[in-house]
């Protein structure tokens, strides 16, 4: 099955946050009210009850004044997700059409995934002692519907469909933007981390939107998962086997020398 993905076009986004509301509505998530921080952004970051947010990134330009870069931020549904790699309970899985989904029944709230994710997406949900994140509305998509955010977007900034077709659309769109006043316009998610199952059309370079320019899984994670976990553990059975061998040989040798020694200690 072809990869189905969400495309987000920054240049069409008006930051109405209907996607945020639709997401809360469909996933039946309670409001997470945060104190006013002096800007229009509702939440500092995604959290256990907020799978997606619209970032309001302010840039001050001496000529143009203050400008906003909007960015809808949520799980990127990586093709080789770090969360899936570290999860000790195998709670993460990839659907055959590309979504990374998390099974709360298996989750034990250890939060290994939170710190492995290069985008910091899986968040701890205190009220359940579990982690939660965007599902790309796998439940809706499997019933032939669009994700709640894409279905509700009034400006067409969010589109859902075949990844290959959306990438072609994104190329055209980026070319158009580059020719019309956004020389740095670019696609994000096409090549990053081997291709994300989430495509962004950005009007500027990714760092202007707070996205990691070259996202990487933090080095400690592969060291831990690919070297320590599979190989170091063999020391323990080695110690047990050594003790077992010694248990037998010491007693065999002691029996041999029995005639010149008596008693329990040397």
């Amino acid at each position: 099955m072809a990869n189905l993905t969400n495309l987000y076009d920054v240049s069409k986004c008006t930051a109405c946050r209907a996607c945020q509301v639709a997401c809360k509505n469909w996933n039946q998530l309670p409001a997470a009210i945060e104190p006013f921080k002096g800007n229009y952004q509702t939440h500092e970051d995604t959290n256990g009850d907020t799978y997606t947010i619209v970032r309001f990134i302010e840039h001050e330009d001496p000529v143009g004044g203050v400008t906003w870069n909007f960015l809808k931020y949520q799980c990127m549904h990586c093709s080789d997700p770090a969360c899936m790699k570290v999860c000790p309970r195998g709670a993460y899985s990839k659907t055959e059409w590309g979504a990374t989904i998390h099974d709360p029944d298996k989750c034990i709230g250890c939060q290994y995934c939170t710190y492995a994710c290069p985008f910091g997406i899986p968040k701890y949900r205190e009220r359940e002692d579990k982690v939660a994140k965007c599902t790309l509305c796998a439940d809706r998509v499997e019933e032939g519907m669009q994700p709640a955010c894409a279905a509700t977007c009034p400006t067409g900034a969010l589109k859902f469909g075949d990844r290959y077709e959306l990438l072609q659309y994104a190329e055209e769109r980026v070319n158009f933007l580059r020719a019309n006043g956004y020389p740095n316009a670019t696609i994000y998610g096409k090549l990053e981390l081997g291709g994300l199952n989430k495509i962004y059309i950005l009007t500027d370079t990714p760092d202007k939107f707070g996205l990691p320019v070259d996202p990487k899984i933090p080095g400690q994670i592969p060291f831990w998962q690919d070297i320590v976990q599979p190989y170091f553990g063999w020391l323990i059975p080695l110690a047990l086997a050594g003790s077992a061998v010694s248990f037998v040989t010491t007693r065999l040798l002691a029996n041999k020398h029995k005639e010149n020694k008596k008693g329990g200690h040397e």
Partner: protein
Amino acid sequence: MQLLTEYREDVERVERFNFVSRLTHWGHTVTFLLCLLTGLILFLDGVDWLAAIFGGYNSAGLIHRISAVFMTLFIIIFIIFDFKGIKAWIKDILSFGKNDIIFILKFPLEFLGFEVKMPPQTRFNGGEKGNSILTPTCVILLVLSGYIMWFPAAFPPGLVRVAYPVHDIAMILSTFMVCMHGYLGSFHPGSGESFWGMWKGTVRADWAKHHHPIWYEETYGEKKAE
């Protein structure tokens, strides 16, 4: 077949470990094993039967944390009530020298049951010194990295990511040492009295003279410092 050396009261015995040392030692035995078994559930992946013994994944996690808190408390008790003992212990470990290296080099033969003539040892022999360095270091690393993993939000993310492999490596090294130590301190015939030294607190004087002559002379012998 005899498993442990017989405990004999009819011969002269000398004190080897005081009450606080023994309490800390056995307290750590229980908490370490509980932490190990509950922790292995996640390390090994897919050992549902082990999780079931502890009442499922969530209660295994709870037992892991409660044991870890007690493990920390035993360290604190040891520091508060036997600081002098810790100082003497560290001093002995740091006196690691030629005799200890010879001991460790010859030890594999003794381990298998061959007769080996060992150089005179202090209170802790070369192998015990190695165990005394490695295991407590690993336990301190386990405790520190464990609290970081328990409350990740309170620490910088980079530190949390380091804590995961550190917790695993320290667990593996300390479990390796604990397996060896558990066997050598009990069923290995050559170790003889050392089990009673930790269980009852005293060892036979003749055993102490034979296995730890330097310590025996300094503590109970003629050169005893008054």
